[in-house]
């Protein structure tokens, strides 16, 4: 029974990550279509960048603590990428150059989104699998 709950927890954390990344993408899209100015856009994005990184780090930690090695390994590249951005101080959006970097920032976040959704589906699969198994018992 506990297994289901851990998968459920993973699932919700991943949903939170998806929300954070989608929010950033929305800000960038709004900026591109001139709905908000670069100052607001950059400050909104920068506001959620660290929470996103921390959420993911926590997720990795829980994977590790609950002994889900494979999931941990799957999530590791993303963590590494975040840490690298952070140590190089490139994690925040630069308001002065935001238009020049728009394409790259969008691409980067789209990849992240795809990655998270991939994890999400795996989590979903295992959650359902576990639920069915529990049922059988």
């Amino acid at each position, binding site marked *: 029974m506990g297994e289901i709950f851990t998968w459920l927890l993973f699932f919700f954390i991943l949903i939170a990550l998806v929300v954070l990344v989608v929010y950033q993408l929305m800000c960038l899209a709004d*900026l*591109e279509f*001139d709905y908000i100015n670069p*100052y607001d856009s950059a400050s909104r994005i920068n506001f959620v960048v660290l929470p996103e990184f921390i959420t993911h780090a926590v997720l990795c930690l829980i994977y590790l603590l609950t002994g889900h090695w494979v999931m941990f390994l799957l999530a590791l590249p993303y963590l590494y990428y975040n840490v690298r951005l952070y140590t190089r*101080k490139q994690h925040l959006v*630069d*308001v*002065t150059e935001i*238009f020049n970097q728009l394409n790259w920032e969008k691409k980067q976040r789209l990849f992240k989104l795809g990655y998270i959704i991939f994890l999400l589906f795996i989590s979903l699969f295992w959650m359902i699998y576990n639920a069915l198994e529990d049922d059988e018992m």
Partner: protein
Amino acid sequence: MGTENPNRANNLQGPSATPFAAPRANMPISSSHPMVGSQTSAFRPTSVPAMPNASPFSSPGPTAGSGTPGFRPMQPGRATPSYGPPTTGPPQRVPAPQFSSTSQPTPSQTSHVGQPILPPSMRPPPPSYVPSVPMGSPPQSLYNAPSSNNPPRSFVDSPYSASGPNIQPPPSSTRPTYPGYPGMQSNQVNPPPPPPPVYNQGGYAPSQPPMPAPFSSHQGGYGQVPPVAPSSGMYGGGSAPPTGVMSGLAEDFCSLSLGSAPGSFDGGLDAKALPRPLDGDVEPSSFAGMYPMNCDSRYLRLTTSAIPNSQSLVSRWQLPLGAVVCPLAETPEGEEVPVVNFATMGIVRCRRCRTYVNPYVTFTDGGRKWRCNICALLNDVQNDYFAHLDATGKRVDLDQHPELTKGSVEFVAPAEYMVRPPMPPLYFFMIDVSISAVKSGMLEVMAQTIKSCLDNLPGSPRTQIGFITFDSTIHFYNMKSSLTQPQMMVVSDLDDVFVPLPDDLLVNLSESRPVVEAFLDSLPSMFQDNVNVESAFGPALKAAFMVMSQLGGKLLIFQSTLPSLGVGRLKLRGDDLRVYGTDKEHTLRIPEDPFYKQMAADFTKFQVAVNIYAFSDKYTDIASLGTLAKYTGGQVYHYPSFHSTIHKDRLRHELARDLTRETAWEAVMRIRCGKGVRFTSYHGNFMLRSTDLIALPAVDCDKAYAMQFALEETLLTTQIVYFQVALLYTASCGERRIRVHTAAASVVTDLGEMYRQADTGAVVSLLSRLAIEKSLSYKLEDARNAVQLKIVKALKEYRKLYSVQHRVGGRMIYPESLKYLPLYGLSICKSTALRGGYADAQLDERCAAGFTMMALPVKKMLKLLYPSLLRVDEYLVKAPTVDDEFDRVCRRLPLAAESLDSRGIYILDDGFRIVVWFGRMLSPDLARNLVEEDSATDFARNQTRRTTSGRVLSTLKFS
């Protein structure tokens, strides 16, 4: 029906009818075929079979033919596999004996001797490239015959890219130096394999000893150049009249022989023949000529006034495709931009694309509608704006509407173009008063200059002014008009800066004039004995921001030490030699602390433009400080190791110009263009407020902005592309205005036409900006290579256009419009911002030059890249009385070592500083008259003075 129809019709025909139809249609045929014929007949009957071989290549079109096979020939190894072992025996002599006797009497020997001379002087060939040359060869052996008169690709690509494009002109039909080559000739007697019309080889191949290494064989190739260059000899022997061919050459492109004349021993490159821009920048006439209603090219310059119609054409035009805009360029007397006031009517604009009404819109439907020239939407003409059309479709009141006849016009903007009441001109000074500022004399010069400019500040009587000084504390000055002396307030809490008396720090200049003058008078003496070495730059910047954020305006920062206290403190960096050449090199050129970028963004948001004046003799991290200017539309002035006796005049001049030139406040700029074309990137000192809106807190005549555009569709269907620059700004008089520049450019389908209408100035301006931007994220080396590669590729592409039709081997060919491009390309690479490595320019100077070049208008940029050099001693000795004689006596000299005579005095003027060069053998009298006694003994070294050219001359004359 439309007002402008006649003109439009002309315009449409203009480009297609005149410039290219004629030469392109006739020339290739008339010139190429006779040529082949002439060669064959002249050289040897055996090469007749080569004719069919040659024609397939020319028939698919000039470029196709030259593109694929044209560049293959130069491979040393290629002959060997197919034709057997290289033999340097008699067989080669057999086929073409008469040729070797006529056109290459000596070449084999001379070229040999020439080899060692030529290469070292012209190019340091990068070793890495060399091996690549023979690599790709084997499969091309098929082609080598017909393509023999084409330039080998390897030349263009490899050895030259290192040394710059203007020496790229390769050898041609005569490259027999390869060991493998002779074998081909011997085979040629046997029938089939593409019988090469390689006429000359037989002539001298045998006498060439086989070259051991591919590299030296290249050099051999260079040495051989000459025999082809004097092509007249060959033509003379042939049946085709050489004159027709030559005139064709002259029409289409310029060429430059880079090989030595046959029989001569010197390097072959005639330095005098190199094109040099001694007349300064020449604007292309086609821009205005074809579309007389275009705005003047001082406002808007396109890199080529012929817009390519397809993506494939864009990709073949290797240079950047874009525009350089200088919206407020200085106008000569009598050509001021007319001001149009629509008053209550509101400004006439297109409903959909918001284009402003301009000379290219057409009125239809009896004058009731007008068609937007950019988006083709039919707009209603407002009742107030209505006028009948005459028989030719023109509005009857055309002469009363400058906006319908002139490419540049200013509209008075009504209230809907304002988000707040127009701001007054505002100057705020933030002055470093630490010990180095006082010692260098900067404080005194600056205070005097500001005082002398108070009368001329634009916008009187609304102008506002304020001052902050700082060392380890921040000093505010209350200058309320009721006071007689300014009141100083010191804030020493750097962590939590606050502004005392927020209302009285910025005062109206005309009201508080006595107080301001009293302050400026006492400023130098006030800090005379200051021994404070610290600089609380960051906190002072924040304080200035708080004071200015209400109104915006211009912030002038005078900084002479490295910021050392509070937020935004900076470290010494840049003296680490090891960083150069590594991937981290560029980090030295970008701001270290995000504080500066953030502040710059905030400044722009509140309409504050920052100008930095930096004076230190030590490292001040211009890379970080300059960021403030970069994103606020400002400028960086750098005076390395400022000393008031030397640099006084320059500071005075530049500060006075900064304060008194006409300035546009709280501006935004947008450039629109027709359907199918889109602006993709913008380069310059500004911040983008949305994808295509440039925010400029303050803009003046010395700022230009570059942008690149791309085609959105694969094929443009329109005949003309229109560009419209609109600058919305507050004039110093307090009026909100929109300055609109409109230009049209024709769409072409032909690459040659694009090159013909290219504008070197704009190309160079854009290229240098791209290179500087590149140097912010890559190594300097990469930035320089990128420039060279672009130019080389462009010239190579151009060569492909013509090398098939004309025998241009051994000559570098280039369009007349781009004749200075290689020279300027090299100048870019040698400019302060990009040259060399660690030791060649101080990091601060490099960064400052980079910021400056990002803002310069085309003309000033070209002058900076290729300064004018004048010899003045004759002029000084004669002491002429008439002023205008100066231009006659002193002509611009080419910037070459030969121009300098050790008996003369020279002035080098790059628009920012003047270098006076005293020759070593200068007559002592003259020198003593010019320089003080003690330094007269020492005059052989360079003397540097910085001021405007006129002033230096006068000081020289009278001292």
